[in-house]
Every structure is written in C-alpha cells, then in structure tokens.
C-alpha cells in the first residue's frame, strides 16, 4: 500500500460512511416518489439533511444537497450574483479572494466574461491570508453599493491558510451584502458552524470528510435569495434540481457525524503528524520553505492536515514523480490543466515568483494517516529531493551541448 499524503484531494471512505452506504445502496426508491419505496428513500435523505445540518451548525431547511463542492460553489456564486443583480442592476461587483479554488475563481471569471460582472480580486499577504484592509477599502465611500456578493474560502486547499471569515462577515454585514464561503477544506477539519459564522452561503463536500465523491451541499440561509443554475424538478428548495443520491447522502451524514464528533481529538492527532512532517522536511532539506502560516506561531490559522513546501531548484512534478515511484503519494497542490502542473495562482498571489512556485509540494493528512506514514515519507524524501534537485528546473536551458549551443 502506498503512503497516501493527498487527503486534501480526496480522503478514503470512513467506516461509518461505508456502513451507511452499503446498507442503503441496494434499496431502490426515488426520494421524490410518493409510494413506500419513495418514502423510505425520502426518510433517509431527510435524516441525512438533519444530520448534516447538525454537524455544520445549520437548520435542516438550510441544507441544499448538490453533486459536490464545485456545484455548490457555482450555485452560490452565480445564483447570488444573478439574484442580486436582478434586484438591483447596479450591483455587479464581486469581491473575491485571489486564492480561491478553481470552482469559485473560474465561476467568477465566467460571470465577468458573460454576465457583466466585475471581479475585485482581494490580495493576500505572504502567508495567504486575505487582506481585510483591501476588503474594507472596497466597501467604503459607497463602494458597497455596487457589490453583489463577497466570496472567500474558509481555508485554502493548497497552503492550508484559514481565512478570517468572522472578521470578513463583520465588515460586510452592516451593508447587507451576502457572503459566501467555500468551506470544502475546512469542514470536518476545524470547527465550522454555519449559523455562528453569519455567512449567507457555504459550500461543503462529502468526499473530503470520508464520504463518497459526487455528494455535497450548499448551506444557504433561509432568507437568502438565489437564482437556480440548473433547472428541472426543483427537488432542493426549488433552487437545485436533480434526483438525490440517497445512499451517498446517507454516507455523507455518517461521515459528517463521525468527523464532527471526533474533531477535537483528530485535529490534535493529525496536527501532531503534520508537525512531524514539517520538522522532518526542515531537517532533511533545510532550504525548503514552509508556505502558509507557521503552525508553531498560529496553530489555529493553518489546517491541521496541511503541510506545504517549496523546494528551491526542484520542479514539483519531479518530486511528485520520485515520491510516487517510492510509494509516497503527494501533490504539487495546484490545479492542473490536462494533468500539467502550472505555477500555482495561490503561490503567485502570495508573492512568489514562477520558478519558486514551480517547486511546490503539498503533503496532506487525514483520518487514515499514521506515524508509519510519516516515517515512510521521511525515509523516501532525502533521495527523492536529491534527484529532483539534480533534475533541476526543466523550464531552464538544458546543459546538454548540441549544434545550436556551440
């Protein structure tokens, strides 16, 4: 079995989720049907809704099940933008952090291109924390009057930086502007409470917490108006259509209960492993730079399962390849085009240059991680790093002499 250090991409299904899934999946029944099978499926879905609501600090009516985090983000960002602009045509600005996941970033860019939105990319500091001053500046002097919505992720998927959501909501609330947060990485990893947050909308995903892929939810305040993105039967509060995945939702609920009940304990355990990885990398490769917040200084400002480094003079995909060959599965951390790691927009927003950003590697831990994983990683790292360093940056000129280098 390879050592799996890519829980931020997806985490293995948890035992309670698997039990729930297998107990439900063989039962037929569309939760929208009115007969016995339908009612049984509906009962499972509604129980899951109550469970997920409890786990996320929301009312059951605030849970809109989706096909995952990406759909939830699309629904929130497009749906809020359209609803707000339709109510007040002057509200076309979207205030958005510059380190969002593609599900938000690309959606905002689409709205700019096709729907007349104006994106304001809020800068982040060197640790990836969004600038509250910049946000305040955009709201001041009547600026708030043209804002449709504010969206900022709860925690960053690449460098694990936890954003000041409470402060953002406090700044924006007086203007009555809805705030959305992509909490896909945060939910189940650190305390997340929808009601206490004051957010209008919040995206969560099942497969990041031990559920199955293809299931997620948008938590949406009861009073928040949203224009639907996909049309059909209107199964979810009339803003989201499509037959629900009963078994997947049962697994989602079981996983949500599991992670929230064990959160305090697991948070500590996983953070301990993460700190061991950070210490080991710093020992083996002193020149490696931890990106994001140093948990030794501000433990609550970094996801417990995230360690992210840049390795000077190494290409991230070389490191990934060598670790993969050695049985350690990691990630360059950034979004891929056709599987090609591009310099991360998150690292560039944090002020890194392209070459430095290309040396990125993310190690993310989760519920199945153990000390043995860390030890295996620590054993594989020195050789992998030495070779990756030797391979250097392929983006640079090759030293092989040929006719045209004479």
């Amino acid at each position, binding site marked *: 079995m390879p050592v799996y250090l890519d829980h931020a991409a997806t985490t293995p299904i948890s035992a309670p989720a698997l039990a729930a899934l297998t107990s439900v999946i063989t039962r037929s029944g569309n939760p929208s049907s009115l007969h016995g099978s339908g009612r049984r499926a509906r009962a499972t879905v509604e129980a899951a809704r109550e469970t997920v609501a409890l786990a996320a600090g929301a009312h059951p009516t605030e849970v809109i099940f989706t096909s995952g985090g990406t759909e939830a983000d699309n629904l929130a960002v497009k749906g809020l933008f359209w609803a707000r602009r339709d109510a007040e045509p002057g509200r076309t600005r979207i205030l958005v952090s510059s380190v969002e996941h593609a599900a938000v970033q690309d959606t905002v860019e689409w709205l700019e291109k096709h729907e007349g939105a104006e994106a304001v990319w809020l800068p982040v500091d060197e640790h990836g924390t969004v600038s509250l001053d910049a946000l305040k500046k955009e709201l001041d002097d009547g600026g708030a009057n043209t804002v449709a919505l504010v969206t900022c992720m709860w925690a960053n998927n690449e460098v694990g930086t936890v954003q000041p959501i409470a402060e953002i909501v406090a700044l924006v609330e007086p203007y009555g502007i809805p705030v959305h947060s992509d909490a896909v990485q945060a939910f189940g990893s650190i305390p997340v409470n929808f009601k206490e947050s004051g957010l209008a909308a919040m995206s969560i995903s099942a497969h990041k917490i031990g559920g199955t892929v293809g299931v997620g939810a948008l938590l949406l305040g009861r009073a928040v108006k949203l224009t639907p993105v996909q049309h059909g039967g209107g199964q979810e509060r009339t803003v989201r259509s499509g037959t629900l995945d009963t078994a997947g939702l049962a697994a989602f609920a079981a996983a949500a209960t599991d992670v929230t009940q064990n959160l305090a304990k697991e948070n500590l355990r996983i953070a301990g492993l993460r700190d061991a990885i950070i210490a080991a990398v710093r020992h083996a490769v002193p020149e490696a730079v931890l990106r994001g917040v140093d948990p030794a200084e501000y433990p609550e400002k970094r996801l417990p399962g995230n360690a992210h480094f840049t390795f000077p003079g190494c*290409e991230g995909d070389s490191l990934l390849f*060598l670790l993969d060959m050695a049985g350690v599965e990691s990630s360059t951390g950034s979004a891929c085009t056709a*599987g*090609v790691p591009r310099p991360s927009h998150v690292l560039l927003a944090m002020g890194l240059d392209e070459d430095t950003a290309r040396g990125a590697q993310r190690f993310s831990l989760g519920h199945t991680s153990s000390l043995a994983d860390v030890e295996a990683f620590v054993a594989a790292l020195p050789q992998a790093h030495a*070779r990756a360093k030797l391979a250097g940056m*392929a983006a640079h000129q090759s030293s*092989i002499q040929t*006719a045209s280098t004479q």
Partner: protein
Amino acid sequence: MRVLAAMSGGVDSAVAAARAVDAGHDVVGVHLALSRMPGTLRTGSRGCCTVEDSNDAWRACDKLGIPYYVWDFSERFKEDVVQDFIDEYAAGRTPNPCMRCNERIKFAALLEKAIALGFDAVCTGHYAKVITDADGNPELHRAADWAKDQSYVLGVLTHEQLKHSMFPLADTPSKAEVRAEAEARGLSVAKKPDSHDICFISDGDTAGWLAEKIEMTDGDIVDETGSKVGGHTGANQFTVGQRRGLKLGTPAADGKPRFVLEIRPKENKVVVGPHALLAIDELKGIKVSWAGLPIAEVATGAEFDCYAQVRAHGDPVPARAFVTEVMDDGVSRQSLNVTLEEPLRGVAPGQTVVLYQGSRVLGQATIDSARSLARPEIP
C-alpha cells in the same frame, strides 16, 4: 534499463513503448505538454498537444500497465522551438522546428531531466535505428522502412544523446505493421490518423501565422540581374523555390515562370529568377554536429564521399564533403563544405543538410549559404 517513453498520444510512440515493455525494460510513459493552453480536442492534422492526445497517451499507458505522467515543457518549447522558428524566418532562413524540438526538447531538456531522475534512456516512436558497437559507441542509421525513415530529423543528435536514445520501431517493415500491432495489442490509437504540419500552427497556415509574429514591410522583388521586377509586402513571407503569389509586374525576357532564388531580409529584398538558377550544387554549413563518433576525415579535413539530404522526405543525392575549422570570436568552429554531384532545387539557408554513408547518418549542419557553381553571385 529504466526507460522513459515519450508519448505523443499517437500510434507510433504507443507501440514503441509497448515494445520497450516487452523487451523487459522498466518503462514509464511521459507526455510532454508543449502548449500552455492546450486545446481540448484534436482538430485537423495535428497529432499532439491537445488534452485528447494526452488522454490517448494515458489510455495507452493504462493498457501497457505502466505509470503515466504529464511534464510541462511549454516554456522551453516556446523559447527553444517556437521563438527560434520565428527568429529564423525573420532572418530570412527556413528552419525545421521538428528537428529543433528533437535537438533541444526531447533529447536535451527531457533527456537531461530523465537521466537526473534515474532513467537510462528516452524511447520515442521515431523510425530510425541506433546501432551500438562493441565499445558502446552509438551510430544512427536509417530505419528499415526508408519510406517512413525519420533519421533526417534525428540527424542533429550527438554521441551523448544517442547513447541514451531508444527507437523500438527501427526494424519495422512498414507503418501498416505498426497499426496492426497496435490493434492486436488493443491500443485505442491504432487507427488514429498520422500527424502532419507544424504542431504549434493549428490550421497549417504557416505564412498567416508568421505574418502575425513578424513585422512585414513593403520591399522590392528583383531579378537575377538586380533589376526591379515587382514589389512585395514583406520578404519573410517567401520561401526559396516558391513560384506562386509573386505577382510580378515585369514579365521575364523569355516569358517563362520565375521562382524565388533568395531572400535578403537585411535589404528586405526578394530575388527571383528562372528555374535553372534554382539548381544548387554547393552548400556551406554551420552549427555542425556528428551523430555518434565523427568519421576519420572530420579531423583530417580530407574530402569524403557521402549522400546529402536537405529535407525530411527529400531524396538524398551523392555528394563530396570536407570540414574546415574556422576561427569565430576566438573560438574554433567547424564549417561543412558540401559539393553535390547532382544539383538540388529549392535549398534555403536555415535548412539542415544531413550527411549519410549508406544507411548511416554521419552528422548534420545548418545551411548558411547555397549556390550554383554555374552562375555568378547574384548582385
């Protein structure tokens, strides 16, 4: 051996990788991302660089049971191949970007990275053959199927590069056989069309593509005596040997068609003349390299018999050649002098001349000047 199979997504590289696996090597498939913004689906005759091609390569690796990765060489490709292509045209020369890619990307940037990462060789689907002697010195030879032979575009590889090159399709009798083998192996790319054209010019319109990249200014078209016979909207859009699209105002004395003989970017001038003057029988080459150990005459400067080929699918002609050492900026460089026994037409500076003895590739040079012994220097 640990072998890195460069996988374009086409049938040749897939079968080459399969043969490397069969030969017992430890093979990893790598697709080179050469464009920063790859297209989604393949269109026209391009055979690489789209997401679909990358996925084809991936599925082939799945079938072969080998790991697959995509490595980003887009920046290098942009600088070393695309920009070079533009610069060469801007300087009035006609480059071969595929050759350049082999020289600087596949068998330099990729090979160097591969060796550093622990590989012994880079394997590609080129039709060419490497023969290694008892001392481990490689020689590059034509493939068994001369119709498909691609040794020309590999002629730029050096001794060091060839030592780490593997071409499993070397002895394949024909492309049909490669397709049949792909089919038999269950590779989905078995019927995928061959690629043509320059991979980074998606619609195949090289002149149009260049016109957007190179500043074109109006200039004169002159004949072989130096008299103005017409005008043009940019010298760089012409290639030597071109007949169509000259739009000459003054007809030739003999009424026969005229062809582009020379492009002079510094004067922004295009020289045209009769077909007979296209015949070239002497070439001077720079940026010389030897595909393996150079033959003895290279060091002595003695003339040797060989065959010269100036384009990928052109016929080789018998020739005599010798090497001189030229001092340039305090550095001694080789210069190649080739006398063609049979004249060649449409030879342009910037093209590569590859020299052969039998099936063996001796080496290559970039053509710096080409002239006809029968005609005086054109004014």
